[in-house]
């Protein structure tokens, strides 16, 4: 394998890993705070369509990115209030959020295609982002910075201690006058913003287009990767890069073997098979936040 090819694969791996890390850091913080958000797939998809629609209409990619983060954060807010205040089961509510997001994104996409003479069915050049440095988008660097920030916050600040306590012993927070409900809602909304931005990365940066269901399970993959990384930021990044590498190799082989009759579905399934195997090998030894998924306060 030539150096150029290896570099190319690594480059593609980072491109594939960025949205996973971005959404993953948010999910990780939410889970450390005790809330599992299975709706992250839907939140990412919401980010995809919002970024695309806003960028196409305003011609501004930045506006699209901001709108994506904002909309997904709002949707995450609904999830947060339903689960944390109204105590709806987190997994179940997350699935409902996925359903809403799939339907809403499809609706908006159809409207974009059929109304306004299909004017917004194409992303204008001005609205797509161009790579900033070394062929990576600015958001990739922002993601790296965000991950570093989250790592430092969880380790070294009182805010991080609070987040960790929320997931492991919320009664410790309550006894110190820290509002468990408010903090958890804030963490979930922040995670929603991250997922929305990750969606924007997919639609207006990586692909420059939207297609229904384009997240293709990335959100679910993120859930697995957070466990895989044992709820630590470096572990998550390692896992994401590993998966990015798998995807990158798959793409490379797929394009190289275009003319042969090699079944590309095997490669497409590879990340999911690997995720499953990784969970099977690691899940046992990764206990995770003690109170993940439990409502607060506990019923007496």
């Amino acid at each position: 394998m030539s150096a150029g090819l290896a570099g190319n694969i690594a480059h593609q791996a980072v491109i594939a890993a960025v949205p996973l890390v971005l959404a993953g850091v948010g999910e990780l913080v939410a889970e450390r705070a005790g809330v599992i958000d299975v709706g992250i797939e839907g939140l990412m998809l919401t980010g995809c369509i919002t970024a695309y629609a806003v960028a196409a209409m305003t011609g501004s990619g930045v506006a699209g990115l901001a709108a994506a983060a904002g909309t997904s954060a709002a949707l995450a807010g609904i999830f947060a209030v339903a689960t944390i205040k109204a105590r709806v089961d987190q997994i179940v509510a997350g699935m409902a959020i996925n359903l809403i997001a799939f339907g809403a994104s499809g609706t908006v996409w159809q409207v974009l295609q059929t109304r306004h003479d299909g004017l917004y069915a194409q992303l204008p050049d001005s609205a797509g982002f161009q790579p900033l440095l070394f062929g990576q988008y600015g958001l990739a660097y922002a993601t790296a910075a965000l991950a570093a920030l989250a790592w430092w916050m969880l380790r070294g600040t009182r805010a991080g201690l609070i987040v960790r306590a929320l997931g492991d012993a919320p009664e410790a927070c309550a006894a110190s006058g820290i509002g468990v409900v408010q903090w958890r809602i804030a963490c979930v909304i922040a995670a929603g913003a991250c997922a929305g931005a990750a969606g924007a990365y997919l639609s207006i940066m990586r692909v420059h287009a939207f297609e229904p269901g384009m997240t293709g399970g990335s959100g679910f993959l993120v859930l697995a990767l957070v466990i895989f990384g044992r709820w630590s930021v470096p572990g998550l990044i390692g896992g994401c890069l590993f998966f990015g590498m798998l995807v990158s190799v798959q793409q490379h082989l797929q394009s190289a073997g275009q003319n042969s009759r090699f079944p590309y579905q095997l490669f497409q399934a590879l990340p999911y098979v690997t995720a499953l195997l990784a969970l099977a090998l690691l899940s046992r030894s990764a206990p995770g936040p003690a109170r993940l998924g439990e409502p607060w306060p506990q019923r007496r």
Partner: protein
Amino acid sequence: MADPGSVLPVTVPAPSAEQRGPARWRDPAVALLAVAVAVVLLLIGLAIAGYAPTDVASTWLSGALGSGVRRALSLQEAGPLLMTGLAVAIAFRAGALNIGGEGQFLLGSVAMIACGTAFRIPGPAWFATIVALTAGALAGAAWAGLAWALERWRGVPLVLSTILLNFIAVYAVSLLVHGVLQDPLTVAPQTAEIPEGMRLPVLATGSKLHLGVAFAAALAVALWLVFERTVFGFELGVVGMNPSAARLAGMPVARRRFEAMLLSGGVAGLGGAFQQAGVTYYMSDSSASYGYAGVAVALLGRLHPLGVAAAAVFFGMLDTGSRNLERVMDVPHDLGDVAKGLAVLAVLVAAAVFFRQARVEAS
């Protein structure tokens, strides 16, 4: 972890037949109210977007129920949703978060198609149909059993394993449809059709409302009896609500959960086989997502088999009605999915707010 199933406990309290008088009707009443609120919200949203709510409602209703054929089409659409919804209800009752209905449904479908096209099953056509349907149920059960095994022995949470297995199933089907099962007479990635003799009888002309839908309805009633009146159903519920107490009461917790998963996967797989034998007759590599919708149907029906049936019919009506909306008023039919999601969320929130089991005290 002593009990892998309790990693992420479901807290959907299943309704009980023991409730008498007004309490017995409170659960469905609250659910209906919540659905009504969701529909009104959606209509308000459409009004803001410039569609007259009355027009939308009447177009939608006439699309869903306007004629005998329309009604049959709504029921036809409800059929697979009822199967996947019941599948989820069985598993959730036992506390097994089987989100894998999609994959189980797909494998059931593929088993039916394989039996109908690639294999030659000896004997009369009705026998081949029964063999193929059984194969569909077994395929779904096996896929669910795999997820159960991963949880039991490797501690992989069911939520995650079943979701990942869904994706793997999608690509497996794609592989087969592009490969060994591809119809040799076309270049398109699709299978051949199953022979006429293996197709399920149609119950209403102008639609493909088939015998499998009637079976699904009967299954809902049967499951209702099983849940409420049998030792097995009672133990399933107790295992789901409190596995520790179930074990101390001498119930075989792991076995009940295993049985629930197999039954759940089997019902989902059978649903897929029904859909192929009754409606589509062949497969391409696109999916109608009945498995995911089944989770919503089950939750909307509050895990009660009859509630699930009502929810499935409602979803079927949403599908046919919103297609009519698209045709007549140019409203995207994906809006039906938004309505589903909103309805589910509304029911969940309403249930959580109305059925607080115990008052929460701060001290």
